[in-house]
């Protein structure tokens, strides 16, 4: 188990290195951030001075070397536009994104699995069809449009929820959390639902298909013939068996929920990491771009690790050490 985790971490270090190199060269190729950030009235000497102050006059390999030297000691550089360390900017925003992604995932799981079960158990009823029809909408509507519609209906027309921003926060162990306040919950409801929509639809379909399949299996039929009550059949025989693909999807989706949060964060002016990345790309704020991607890769590695560990809990036949050998 331990060696498995270690091996994973070493692999991810390699990924981090290659990725930082690619991003570094990529941003360099687009252009010089000083061209965008410089005071328009500045003369040529001032432009040269600013370029040198940021170390952008050095050859690319030197700039990368300086970055690596800093990165090894935990310093990912200072933002060109914010006068703050890049890492600090990202960590400052991370709770907002994680909070949003977790709430979205929670909504998807809490609504998606029961709805999928229902649709799987009664596929030919009107409700079952309605659920499936609804899931198609969840797949096909662009989330930008849905977000704006949510704001128009619930904020502008009905006035129930605040249209944008993050609510009041409380500090828990040094982290700013908004889901613990009523104001925060009112603010997160729409963006989280908007973000959950795709995953919700996915989980409904997945659960339904799994349920349909499991219901036809011998062990379910045997259990029912034996007279086991239906709720217990569902809980012990159906749900437990269909949970492995669902856990995989929730895990993988959690990564993409974080990635897709960019769109939702932009619509709802949610101060998360995704919005920071977009803003940073538009002004070529390289230290922040590189640091952001490094952290997201780390996050993905971590999520996959947790998913793998979750397998062993759900299915005793899976052995981590055996697989990696």
């Amino acid at each position, binding site marked *: 188990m331990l060696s498995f985790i270690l091996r994973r971490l070493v692999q991810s270090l390699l990924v981090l290195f290659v990725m930082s190199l690619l991003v570094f060269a990529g941003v360099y190729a*687009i*252009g*010089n*951030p*000083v*061209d*965008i*950030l*410089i*005071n*328009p*009235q*500045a*003369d*040529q*000497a*001032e*432009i040269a*001075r*600013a370029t040198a*102050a*940021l170390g952008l006059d050095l050859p690319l390999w030197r700039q990368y070397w300086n970055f690596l030297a800093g990165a090894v000691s935990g310093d990912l550089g*200072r*933002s*060109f*536009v*914010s*006068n*703050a360390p890049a890492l*600090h*900017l990202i960590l*400052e*925003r991370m709770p907002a994104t994680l909070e949003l992604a977790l709430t979205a995932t929670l909504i998807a799981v809490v609504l998606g699995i029961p709805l999928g079960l229902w649709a799987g158990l009664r596929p030919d009823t009107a409700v079952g069809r309605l659920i499936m029809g609804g899931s198609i909408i969840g797949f096909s509507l662009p989330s930008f449009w849905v977000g*704006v519609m949510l*704001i*128009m209906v619930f*904020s*502008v027309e009905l*006035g129930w929820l*605040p*249209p*944008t*921003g*993050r609510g009041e926060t409380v500090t828990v162990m040094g982290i700013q959390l908004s889901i613990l306040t009523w104001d925060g919950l009112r603010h997160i409801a729409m963006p989280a639902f908007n973000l959950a929509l795709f995953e919700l639809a996915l989980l409904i379909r997945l659960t339904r298909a799994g349920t349909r399949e499991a219901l036809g299996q011998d062990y379910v039929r045997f259990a029912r013939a034996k007279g086991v009550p239906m709720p217990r059949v569902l809980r012990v025989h159906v749900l437990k068996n269909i949970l492995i693909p669902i856990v995989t999807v929730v895990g993988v989706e959690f990564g993409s929920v974080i990635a897709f949060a960019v769109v939702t964060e*932009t*619509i*709802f*002016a949610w*101060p998360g990491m995704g*919005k*920071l990345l977009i*803003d940073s*790309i*538009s*002004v*070529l704020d390289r230290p922040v771009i590189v640091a952001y991607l490094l952290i997201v890769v780390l996050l993905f590695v971590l999520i996959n690790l947790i998913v793998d560990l979750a397998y062993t809990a759900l299915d005793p036949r899976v052995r981590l050490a055996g697989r990696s050998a």
Partner: protein
Amino acid sequence: MLKRLIIAACASAWTLTAVFAADLNIGLSADVTTFDPHFVAAQPNLTAQKHVFDTLVYVDERGRPIPGLATWKTTDSVTWEFTLRRGVKFHDGSELTTDDVLFSLDRTLNIKGSPGGYATYVRPIIAKEIVDRYTIRLKTAAPYGGVAQDLSEVQIVQKRAAQNATGEDFDSGRAAIGTGPYKLVRFARGSRIELARNDDYWRGRLPWEKVTLHILPSDPVRTAALLSGQLDAIEHVPTADLARLRKDPSLRLEQAVSWRTIFLHLDQYREHPPGVSGKDGKALERNPFKDARVRRALSKAINRRAIAERVMEGLALPAANVVSPSVFGHDPAVKPEPYDPKGARQLLAEAGYPDGFRVSIATPNNRYINDEQVAQTVAQMFSRIGIETRVDAMPLSAYFGRARKRDFGIALLGWGSLAADLALRSLAGTTNPEKGYGTWNWSGYSNPELDALIERSLATVDPRKRETIARQASALAAREMAFLPLHYQIVTWAMKKNLSYAARTDEFTFAHHFKPR
């Protein structure tokens, strides 16, 4: 009975507070990256910071410098004497002195890791001499008339608080001690800025006790937040929502002609500008833009009124000058080139291009209002006189870098400046790194006569004389078509019916300029 009285009293107290202890929520259109007022010269940052920090020189709604923290006079052609108002207090109660001013000016030059902040404005000053607590004398190396305009951008921080402060100290508010109308309560980056009224503000008491600036870069969302009542006012009303907001009886709009002029740079210095060729794709013998008749033809081909009314939905004014009407050095005698496609064709034929040629217009697609659509429209207008035109649109991050490498034959640019001579120095002065001329002169336009005018204008310290020369320079650049002005943007604020705002040509949104009606 008593109970009723109490209820009535409470009710009236409640309505009173609702009227007087009002909060103001404003939606801003761009992110504020730092609260360090000297780190990066970006308008969104200045917008937020100028609530907390003051400047020696203020700028009025029309873009003209007026006394701020100080009044000034020139004692000779290179000496500017600034006299501070007495009794101006920082947010911590200490008095503003020339020590703070000197420190703030020097800080712009010494700040580390800045991508080019405010040093540009302070660099011309070679000596700073504190005369007394309230008087500071600034000397320039050569006569330079732009000192007051430049200092309207340099915010004054408190020496004691800012001396060893990092960017984080300003963001946390610890070093963000100014003399401005509001105190910084919380800077939640990417989300909002919470401000509290400075009751000792030297210009008197303000109506808004608590102000929150919300960062809402997405256009439809900013509008929705106003419509939902979450916000009291928004800046930069998007063209698409203008009609709807105008019809809404609970809202009102305030507009001003912005200082931003949108124009086209035409490469006039190389033999073969990028993207310019014959219709058969072969290179032309010479650069057509070097011929004034061709430039005039292109200018005549542009229907500026149609662009202003249709593409910009009325949020623009046809342009002829380098700066917009109320700005220093605008020459009202210069009129926009009338739309005349027939005359344009004729001029092209005279210049030896009866069948036209092929060009490409480069434009950013996320910088100016409807920038890409404007370029597309101009392209169609050029095509109508036989010049086959393609549009090459890209995000700003790629655009400025490529433009600086002179990758484009025709390039769209917008420019906001407080003075025509300063604008022309960057845009049309002969490129000369030693003198600092022509930094943004993508046309490669060069005219010694214009250079001399700009130089003379900038070296004139008397504002009235300086403006006369600046106007001549504006007129000359327009006559020679150093670049082709398209329009001045119009900037719009939308707010609740019971508010008013003195719309500003420099586009700034200041809570302290909103008034209850």
